[in-house]
């Protein structure tokens, strides 16, 4: 399994000289399985470049896993090149809603005044799926989706092969559901998604003092991200969903804070950055 980060910024794209090292594109992570299956996590603006790359590689089938439908996780979909290729089959998985189907909710962003072309007119063969309540299989991986603490229907994903595991919780505020360290794993939002994974991508949008002013917004402080990773036994933590106001320098301070909190003399936790590739056995 190989992870490639195409976007790790939170909330809104932030191109510019201050965000050059870690990138300004919003959430998008590619997961390449050994059997050739391509999974794409979220459709932030990072998915635009990924789309061209996938077509260059001859991809004909893509599974897109959406954690939720906030704009920074969906805004790149309209510019995802495989969507505009009739030879491509695209399976879109996302959280169920009590009110509207996944297709109906996504269709809103493919309609006036937001966009000139209706979703029905895209050439690719697109199928929408509510994520199952039980683990399911795509290609050579087992997937699990659980609802997690973030405003509106939001899931995290666990992707596991016979040899490695990966947890993806880009927008997550587990501290909203109580003190993380005091709880057993089954009582922690995201506990099964991230339990004992080899690598965890987790929301670490804020420094602790910033978080105090934004409790309930759906994101984590760096301290809560580190506490969460420790409580669920994640082996490595990648700090994700970078605050738009954080320059590269501030992000590096946040990484230093994470390592101090984790008490480790090694290269983890680490900041996610655009272009980063992580190979898992």
């Amino acid at each position: 399994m190989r992870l490639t980060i195409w976007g790790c910024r939170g909330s809104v794209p932030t191109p510019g000289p201050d965000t050059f090292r870690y990138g300004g594109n919003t959430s998008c992570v590619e997961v390449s399985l050994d059997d050739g299956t391509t999974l794409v996590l979220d459709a932030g603006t990072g998915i635009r470049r990924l789309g061209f790359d996938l077509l260059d590689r001859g991809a004909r089938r893509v599974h897109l896993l959406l954690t939720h439908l906030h704009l920074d996780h969906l805004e790149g979909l309209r510019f995802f090149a495989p969507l505009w290729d009739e030879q491509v089959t695209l399976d879109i998985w996302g959280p169920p809603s009590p009110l509207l189907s996944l297709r109906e909710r996504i269709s809103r962003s493919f309609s006036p005044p937001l966009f000139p072309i209706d979703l029905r007119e895209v050439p690719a063969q697109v199928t929408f799926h509510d994520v199952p309540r039980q683990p399911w299989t795509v290609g050579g991986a087992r997937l699990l989706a659980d609802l997690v603490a973030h405003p509106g229907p939001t899931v995290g994903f666990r992707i596991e092969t016979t040899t490695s595991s990966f947890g993806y919780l880009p927008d997550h505020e587990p501290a909203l559901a109580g003190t993380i360290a005091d709880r057993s794993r089954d009582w922690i939002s995201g506990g099964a998604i991230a339990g004992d994974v080899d690598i965890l991508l987790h929301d670490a949008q804020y420094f602790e003092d910033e978080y105090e002013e934004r409790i309930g917004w759906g994101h984590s402080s760096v301290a809560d991200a580190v506490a969460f990773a420790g409580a669920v036994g994640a082996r490595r933590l990648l700090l994700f969903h970078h605050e738009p106001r954080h320059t590269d320098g501030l992000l590096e301070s946040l990484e230093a804070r994470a390592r101090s909190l984790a008490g480790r003399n090694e290269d983890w936790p680490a900041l996610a950055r655009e272009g980063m590739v992580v190979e898992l056995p």
Partner: protein
Amino acid sequence: MPVGTPRQKHLVLILAREFASNLATPTLIADDRGWLIYYNEAAEAVFGRSFAEVGEMPQEEWTARFEPRTLDSEPLPLERRPTGIALHERRAAHERFLITSVDGVEREVAVTAFPLFAHTDEFVGIVTIFWRE
């Protein structure tokens, strides 16, 4: 997932627990099987034991220990208790009845129970609230 990996409790239950843990009103939470999975500190004062001591168990097994009965001192069957109605009929219910609390004193309590639905077809548990009067 690896064998033995515990599933996360439903997010609605996790958030309900956090809500209950901040209430001064005795509140119990049961899952979709009817198992008592949490009660708050205010409920400890009613039941005389902390939830950590009790652990998870069928909620009816737990509440039966307090001999719920009608205001006429007749046994109150499960199907007439708010908890049973919320669990099995999946609707809200409220009832006043008598219990014998841990100190051996008979007390009149008012109990409200209501079901938790994550989706219209996804029942995930119930909340029971004891109103001390």
